[in-house]
């Protein structure tokens, strides 16, 4: 137990650099007491406009230029100026050192909240969670983005704004399908990237040769009755990777741009899979750190009330049917789950012992750490959502079947429903479930080199009509005709689209 501070930190509403440093020192000390392992912190003060700039480039300090970021900026700016939208209080970047942006407009209490939330909560999550450890390299992301920006600019100068814009449009359309879900990618390293680029370009051009083979095979006899060889031999889920390596008509610089988009998508992939965990973790820790600081006598009542108000807003979960309801609030769910795990460790009930024999009564810090490090949203919920929390949140599960006139409530927060609700919620956060499963199925090597993609429907859920537009983008990248088949659970093709190659321009 540390000694109680003789005097609380000053709590005026305006911040100053000295005050932030004082608060930061105490927060860091408190965080170290709980053993939060973080990258070094770099705090940066920015203005609202800079915050919107950061929004526009997907939260990164640098990024290549594209009109869609301009669109994003314009709509954010408009909504902000009209007061429809508050800006986030912070943005934190998964880099080493971990960069946290603090907004100039924040009060001192908010700055303290933000430092605890971003610089210790998110930061330790970035450093600890297995997905981030495995898929992203915090030390080199900024370098890589600088490289990407320069490379794209160079391409714009050399090949024209239009050509680059069209290419990026097409790549962005496939961005969600440009990640390796299971295979671990090599980490980004700028020096190696550069050294390997020319080598890769030459090699990649050779690789597409199979598609170009026009000489007849020596023996016609076998070809006639042998089953047509599939290419690729196994279906591939990473569409951008397949295109980068196999599209016959792409120039080397185009392949490199595809690769850049793919790498950036891969970098953000863990964030998309750990929304609940990440935000919940950061929220849990700002709550716990600031409360501890209050108990130690560091915070004044005024500061305390102010951040608590903001905390309450952040974790507010409107009930279904409420006019503000738009799905489950990841902050609320994550915060509730971590708090619940801590409760189960410290004050387990008989029910907890039955459901979570490993957790009930264990050391809460170690348990929480384990939960943060080794899961993603899907498995985290599947593992740790307790019956008690389901009752508190009053969760219920609804099935919407197109063959049925009405929706059916299939499970609620009762003994019969706990497992079903938990499973359904867990699946709801499974990216593979949320996004259509589309794979490269075949390339017609003998004929028109057309590419076939296949969508395997999950629970007979069809694709929406936007698929036709996306397919045009695929055709632009592929250079030849493309078709997309959607296969339902019975194995029949229920929807199909085709797009012919865009004329060379």
């Amino acid at each position, binding site marked *: 137990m540390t000694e109680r501070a003789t005097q609380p930190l000053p709590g005026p509403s305006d911040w100053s650099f000295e005050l932030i440093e004082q608060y930061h020192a105490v927060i860091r000390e408190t965080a170290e007491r709980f053993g939060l392992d973080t990258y070094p912190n770099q705090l940066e003060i920015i203005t609202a406009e800079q915050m919107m700039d950061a929004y526009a480039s997907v939260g990164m300090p640098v990024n290549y230029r594209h009109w869609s970021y301009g669109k994003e900026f314009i709509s954010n700016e408009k909504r902000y100026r009209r007061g429809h939208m508050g800006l986030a209080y912070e943005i934190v970047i998964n880099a080493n050192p971990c960069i946290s942006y603090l907004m100039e407009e924040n009060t001192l209490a908010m700055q303290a909240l933000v430092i605890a939330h971003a610089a210790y909560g998110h930061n330790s999550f970035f450093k600890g969670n297995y997905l981030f450890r495995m898929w992203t390299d915090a030390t080199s992301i900024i370098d890589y983005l600088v490289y990407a920006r320069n490379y794209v600019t160079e391409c714009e100068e050399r090949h024209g704004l239009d050509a680059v814009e069209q290419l990026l449009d097409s790549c962005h359309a496939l961005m969600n399908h440009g990640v390796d879900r299971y295979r671990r990618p090599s980490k980004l390293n700028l020096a190696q990237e550069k050294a390997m680029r020319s080598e890769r370009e030459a090699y990649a051009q050779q690789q597409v040769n199979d598609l170009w083979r026009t000489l007849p095979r020596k023996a016609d006899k076998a070809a006639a009755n042998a089953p047509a060889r599939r290419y690729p031999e196994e279906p591939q889920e990473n569409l951008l990777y397949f295109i980068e390596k196999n599209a016959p008509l792409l120039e080397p610089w185009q392949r490199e741009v595809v690769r850049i988009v793919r790498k950036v998508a891969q970098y953000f992939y863990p964030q998309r899979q750990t929304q609940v965990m990440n935000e919940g973790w950061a929220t849990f820790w700002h709550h716990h750190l600031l409360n501890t600081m209050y108990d130690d006598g560091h915070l004044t009542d005024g500061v305390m009330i102010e951040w608590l108000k903001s905390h309450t807003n952040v974790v507010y979960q409107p009930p279904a049917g409420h006019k503000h309801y738009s799905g489950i609030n990841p902050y609320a769910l994550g915060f509730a789950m971590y708090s619940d795990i801590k409760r189960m460790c410290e004050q387990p009930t008989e029910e907890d012992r039955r459901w979570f024999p490993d957790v009930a009564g264990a050391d809460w810090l170690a348990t929480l750490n384990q939960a943060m490090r080794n899961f993603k949203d899907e498995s985290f919920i599947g593992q740790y959502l307790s019956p008690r929390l389901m009752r508190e949140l009053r969760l219920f599960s609804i099935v919407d079947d197109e063959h049925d*006139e009405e929706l059916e409530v*299939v499970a*609620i927060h009762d003994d019969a429903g706990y497992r079903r609700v938990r499973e359904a919620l867990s699946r709801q956060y499974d990216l593979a479930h949320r996004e*259509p499963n589309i794979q490269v199925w075949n390339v017609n090597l003998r004929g028109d080199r057309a590419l076939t993609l296949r969508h395997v429907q999950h629970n007979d859920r069809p694709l929406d009509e936007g698929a036709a537009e996306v397919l045009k983008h695929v055709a632009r990248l592929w250079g030849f005709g493309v078709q997309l088949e959607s296969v339902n659970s019975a194995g029949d093709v229920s929807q199909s689209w085709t797009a012919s190659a865009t004329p060379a321009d």
Partner: protein
Amino acid sequence: MLQQIIDRRLAGKNKSIGNRERFLRRHKDQIREAVKRAVDGRGIRDLVQGEDVHIPRRDISEPVFSHGPGGQRETVHPGNDDYLRGDRIERPPPGGSGSGGSGASDSGEGEDDFVFHLSKEEFMQVFFDDLALPNLARTTLADTPEFKTHRAGFSSDGNPSNLHVGRSMRGAIGRRIAVGSESRRELTRLEAQLDQLLSHPQPSPHEHEIAALRIDIEALRARLARIPYLDPIDLRYRSRVRVPVPTTKAVMFCLMDVSGSMDESRKDLSKRFFILLYLFLTRHYERIDIVFIRHHTQAQEVDEHNFFHSMETGGTVVSSALVLMDEIARARYPTSEWNIFGAQASDGDNWHHDSGRCRELLAGRILPLCRYFAYVQVADEEQNLWDEYAALAAENPVFAMRKATAAAHIYPVFRDLFKKEGVAA
């Protein structure tokens, strides 16, 4: 170790200006259309402001593969009030909220247009896109009396207010090091020698040498001390040079008929034309004078307010205005310094004996002075003034004429008059 907090606030905003440019570029056609509509509908005072541009949302959507409605889906929601397992709920109408657990719409605006604000500069950019001043040979440099000063490095003389302290001190340090180095080396050598001699046991056999060394050392020290800390040759001054600048002054003559036949709507058309020309010139010249001349049977130079707002009636003698313009131009705006532009608006109604004289005045006296002279007729009827002018336009490239009979025509006519050579309007 306490990390530094970095203040980024001054480190440039508008980092995404490049993205914005790309966005505008992509939607150029819609923006141009919006600008055109805006100009047609606007009052004169606020002709050039920013403008809200509407773009249909489907034009800026970025398609991705996603699930459509249908099939079977199970979603979990919080806040159960009174449902039990097996309860059946009426299907909410499509598009209603509450069905997509995580697929909440981020736009929140549905099918509305995407609206954004074009700043004044961007508006002007689009407004005058592809337009250029014809005959843009600028008035000769030789006799321009205008100079601009700008920095040109450093010089060794100048006045005290231009003294550059940093540079001067840097020079002084260099000089002190360079001038003193020989003596300092010698001094070090002698001192070492002296120390060596002094280390011998007393009494020393080298008394003489020691005394001589001491004198030398003193002399060297004195010499070193005499090296001035700051010498006049160290001083550096910021150098500023005067360079002649090409003249960027223009004068614009606005000639308007205010006779009885010019009603309010015709005057309004004329004003629009003048304002467009004025705005356009402001993009090319730093300083612009405007001379307002109105006429019925007599011409008069007036200020802007009277020009646009006062009412006059009577007959029309166009040449009176041209005579006045000629006088003013020759008296006040020598062509060696001023680029002269003329803009005339009229309904084409003129005392019929006067039109021939107008043509002579223009051809003989005025057009040789002008960079460009544009005539806009705000009525459809072609009278003798139009015919005379048409003959003039055929033979003189500095002169151009068009008709505009509705507010919506003004902008296209203007574009037509000033279109860049080789670019379709």
